[in-house]
């Protein structure tokens, strides 16, 4: 489809696009992946330390310890975001900081802090979930469909 679109463009535009493709800086994919692996793995390792802490000292089980771990990581992220440390880390690690739940928290907290000057209702309230919104919306929608299908399926087999 993209090729068809390209053919309809005037020759100058095609030349320009070829030039643009040539000049575009190649992304160092392998290097970025290694960085993402190390930082992302490190964040999960800290998560595992927190999980183990909750299991041993607060009698959580392997299944239930996930929730307090996530909440603890989000508190830590609040401070890292507030002091501007998380942004630096994010520039270095790319998906390594975006994919863990800390990245989700950073998206929420940084937009909350950024829009604070517009007031707490119109600024913080409306903009807070701007980046995290799609994740929640389509996560919930997809989960609804999947859970619905699974429930119907098990019922059909059960009868």
């Amino acid at each position, binding site marked *: 489809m993209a090729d068809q679109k390209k053919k309809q463009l005037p020759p100058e535009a095609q030349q320009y696009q070829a030039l643009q493709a040539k000049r575009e800086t190649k992304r160092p*994919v392998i290097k*970025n*992946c290694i*960085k*993402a*692996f190390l930082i*992302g*793995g*490190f*964040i*999960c*390792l800290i*998560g*595992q*330390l927190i*999980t183990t802490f909750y299991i041993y000292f607060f009698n959580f089980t*392997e*299944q239930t310890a*996930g*929730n*307090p*771990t*996530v*909440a603890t990581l*989000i508190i830590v*992220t*609040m401070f890292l975001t507030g*002091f501007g440390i998380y942004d630096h880390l994010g520039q270095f690690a*790319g*998906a390594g900081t*975006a*994919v*863990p*739940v800390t*990245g*989700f*928290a950073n*998206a*929420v907290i940084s937009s*909350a*802090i950024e*829009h*604070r*000057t517009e007031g*707490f209702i119109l600024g*913080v309230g409306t903009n807070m979930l701007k*980046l995290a919104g*799609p*994740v929640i919306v*389509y*996560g*919930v929608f*997809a*989960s*609804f469909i*999947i*859970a*619905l299908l*699974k*429930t119907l399926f098990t019922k059909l087999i059960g009868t």
Partner: protein
Amino acid sequence: MIFFWAFVVGGLICVLGQIMFDVFKLTPAHTLTTLVIIGALLDGFGLYEPLIHFAGAGATVPITSFGNSLVHGAMAEAEKHGIIGVITGIFEVTSAGISAAIIFGVIGAIIFKPKG
């Protein structure tokens, strides 16, 4: 040993995200949404729970676990109350992540001033 696998599995999920950024040129919002849906699908097929058992926080900390817990809550409630449970149960397990993000987002906005 669980620490090692948490590091490796968590790291690999982040590499998957990085590949979506760099190779498929997706925006962060598209990438995270896709990962959440992948997590939800995995739990739909009953594959996410074994991963958590194997890798601990390596599976619960990446955003894919958000999809997993959404489906998990819905299914747990659906077993008790039937079809209606699918809607009432969706946020059952996930609530900690979303409420913590919102609560600390507001607290952060109160404490910190925007920079630059």
